[in-house]
């Protein structure tokens, strides 16, 4: 932990109004300024790491809204995450973590098979029975929450069905690599398929290397440096095998992690080059806005946009998605209040800290509903999962979609099914 970074915080409090947990509690311990102070006081020997100390730090969503807000350049969220990582480092992985992070996540085949029972569970109608009878209420709360988040799964993960090379439509303008996120492939395959179709329509030949592995974000979350570095090295080498102008992802979380490979591998030139090529899909599409615009057909719907933390705060991308949506003729774009505030999903936070997650989500939902828009657009699978569930409820459901789905609808002139 870099002490210099800690003492750079001048305690001006500019981060406080941007921190979702401070807004809910008004507690200094639940603010970025307070968390930096806690870690600093530990380093200075004034505080020790107790359960309560860790409890305070773990209330952080790591949404990094504080980093965007900080004029002194302190990233409180990252400092806290790093600190928790260091504290955990010595402990090794728990049995479950080892199972998931070492034996499951790095192996796409196994990961996909693990979803088979889930799919069966939904298809067989068992899910309906379980939900109706409230059987899960008898199990620990986290299980029930996890089950509740699961939307209807697609027939097959996209990684299985997509060819490695999707040719460009019309004149070819270059080759891009597609980094297909695990959750996108498994759960939101339709959105990722839309991504590929858009790229192809714009004249890109799209290469989706089949062996690619999880970006490593779950390892980072569990303080598993070894797993993280292995993932970074593997993907860097894999993509280096192709001639690519850029590497595109439609998963905000993956994008943020991929852009840090250079840092994760301590400045390794190949990793730096890889990271330098990574683009969120909205960046690449926005750069092609002039050629995209004539392809879009009018849509008569009201839409609002939620900035995923991993896109707005971690990658600094805010205007691109907004500009793209407004390319669609007739579309009624409505900006919501606090659009770049976390939705409370935050990796596994919604399962680990359900109470705070629900408060943060509640505020988000209220802001979305206030716009009156019937479509919410976003760009990260965690937010899609969290918000789909929350917004399906009530008598005025709001449909939650990925940016690329919206753009593809407009391109194909397919009116969205209600």
């Amino acid at each position, binding site marked *: 932990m870099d002490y*210099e970074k800690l*003492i*750079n915080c*001048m*305690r*001006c*409090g*500019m981060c*406080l*109004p941007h921190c979702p947990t401070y807004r809910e509690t*008004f*507690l*200094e*311990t639940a603010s970025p*300024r*307070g968390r930096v*102070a*806690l870690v600093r*006081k530990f380093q200075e020997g*004034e*505080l020790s790491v*107790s359960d*309560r*100390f860790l409890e*305070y730090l773990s209330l952080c969503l790591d949404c990094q809204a504080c980093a965007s807000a*900080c*004029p*002194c*350049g302190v990233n409180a969220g990252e400092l806290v995450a790093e600190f928790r990582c260091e504290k955990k480092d010595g402990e090794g992985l728990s049995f479950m973590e080892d199972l998931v992070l070492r034996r499951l996540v790095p192996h796409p085949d196994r990961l996909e098979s693990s979803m088979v029972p889930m799919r069966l569970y939904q298809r067989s109608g068992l899910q309906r029975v379980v939900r109706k009878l409230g059987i899960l209420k008898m199990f620990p709360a986290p299980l029930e929450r996890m089950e509740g988040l699961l939307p209807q799964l697609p027939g097959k993960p996209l990684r299985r069905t997509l060819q490695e090379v999707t040719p460009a439509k019309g004149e070819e303008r270059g080759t891009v690599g597609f980094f297909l996120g695990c959750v996108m492939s498994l759960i939101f395959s339709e959105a990722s398929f839309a991504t590929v179709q858009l790229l192809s329509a714009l004249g890109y030949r799209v290469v989706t290397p089949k062996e690619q592995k999880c970006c490593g974000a779950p390892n980072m979350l569990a303080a598993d440096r070894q797993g993280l570095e292995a993932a970074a090295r593997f993907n860097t080498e894999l993509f280096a095998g192709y001639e690519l102008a850029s590497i595109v992802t439609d998963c905000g979380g993956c994008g943020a992690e991929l852009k840090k490979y250079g840092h994760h591998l301590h400045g390794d030139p190949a990793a730096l080059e890889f990271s330098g090529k990574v683009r969120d899909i909205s960046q690449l599409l926005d750069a092609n806005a002039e050629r995209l615009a004539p392809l879009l057909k009018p849509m008569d719907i009201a839409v609002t946009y939620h900035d995923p933390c991993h896109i707005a705060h971690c990658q600094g991308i805010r205007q691109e998605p907004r500009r793209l949506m407004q390319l669609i003729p007739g579309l009624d774009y409505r900006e919501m209040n606090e659009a770049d505030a976390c939705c409370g999903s935050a990796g596994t936070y919604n399962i680990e800290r359900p109470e705070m997650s629900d408060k943060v989500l509640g505020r988000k939902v209220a802001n979305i509903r206030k716009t009156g828009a019937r479509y919410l657009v976003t760009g990260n699978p965690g937010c899609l999962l969290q918000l789909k569930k929350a917004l399906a409820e009530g008598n005025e459901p709001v449909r939650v979609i990925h940016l690329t789905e919206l753009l593809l609808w407009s391109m194909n002139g397919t009116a969205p099914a209600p």
Partner: protein
Amino acid sequence: MDQSFLKELAAIAGAEHTLTDRESLAVYGYDSTPELESRPGAVVLPATTGEVARIMALCHGAGVAVTPRGSGTNLSGGSISFSGGVVLQTSRLNRILEIDEENLTATVETGVITSTLHKEVEARGLFYPPDPGSMNISTMGGNVAENSGGLRGLKYGVTSDYVMGLSTVLPDGDLLKSGGKAVKNVAGYNLNDLLVSSEGTLGIFTEVMVRLIPKPVAKKTMLVHFPELEQAALTVSRIIAARIIPATLEFLDRVTIRCVEDYARVGLPLDVEAVLLIEVDGHPAVVEEDAAAIRAICEKHRCSFFQTAGSNDEALKLATARRVALSALARFKPTTILEDATVPRSCIAPMVKFIQETAKKYGLLIGTFGHAGDGNLHPTCLTDERNRDEIARAHAAFEEIFDAAIAMGGTITGEHGVGVAKKKYLPKLVGESGLKVMRGIKSAFDPKGILNPGKVI
């Protein structure tokens, strides 16, 4: 702290809102003031005026000191409890009680964030002008207690110009209501004015009623570059001498410009000595006329570039960049010691020059920015608290700067308050008789001395 006392405290605000754990106390020991820190004995977050009154009565009975706190962003150590007492945070008193469009007043609880009030009234075509740099987090109670100014102070004045009424819990728990909706009111002493800028030493404000004005119809934001520092400072005095009162007339020197641009990326020039951020507002025709006159004055003083914001968004970006100047300066060095020396407007140029010379004399890096139109400058020393020698030099330099400010007919603090940080300079400014009256006022309000002891006097 005594266990039975803490139990009673928790019974009033709820255990969830009464903090005594090590970690909480450790992070309630600071505010935005550099170099100052001290742990309280407990922290309490009441939600109603009634709870505040009961807490004060309890502490009064037990002889426990209480330090009010809004968001802890003041720069003079005012919200730090140095006696191990109770810190009372007002954030949960956060309701906007009334916006009276007929009488043009707003009544809010004091934990309301300043910019939240701005948004609410502006949505109704009304305007609450005080806009401290910290307005997105500072509380209305903190603004009243410090009599905060802001970027629009030149034309619109400071917080005290808008306070019409206050509900104040006195140290013994009694409630004092002062002022009200009547625009004219001369019944008895003017308690509102006495309470504004009392820095939490006379009572705890729980509600404040402020005056609103119609929102200006038009505004124009300009950014002007100056290759010569003194010319920029002279321009400030000349604009005012030409009988033009812009809403905003802010000054940033080279060091500040670099730090702000590094954070905000709004296209500030890195090769000039100073910039002025100027905003005029009001009737569209007057705005145009003033802007043209200002441009002529700037050109006469050899500005190298004159930019007018093309859109509201662009204007907002420029103003925001200025608002974060202080925090942005902290990018350079771990510690920023900022001062608040204020001089009559005509003395801006000699003051800026004096600050630069003093910085050189003591071998310090000092960035200066501030509400130049108000003569209110914030010379900010960029240093490292671990470098004791440099810190000592910084304090010596500021002592000279204060003396110069007073000699020019100015003051040691324009808006940040005395707190503990400026306490030792107060006698210089107000004299023995001033101190005597202030002590008398303090003991009339707080004979037991339990409210924010050790501050101001």
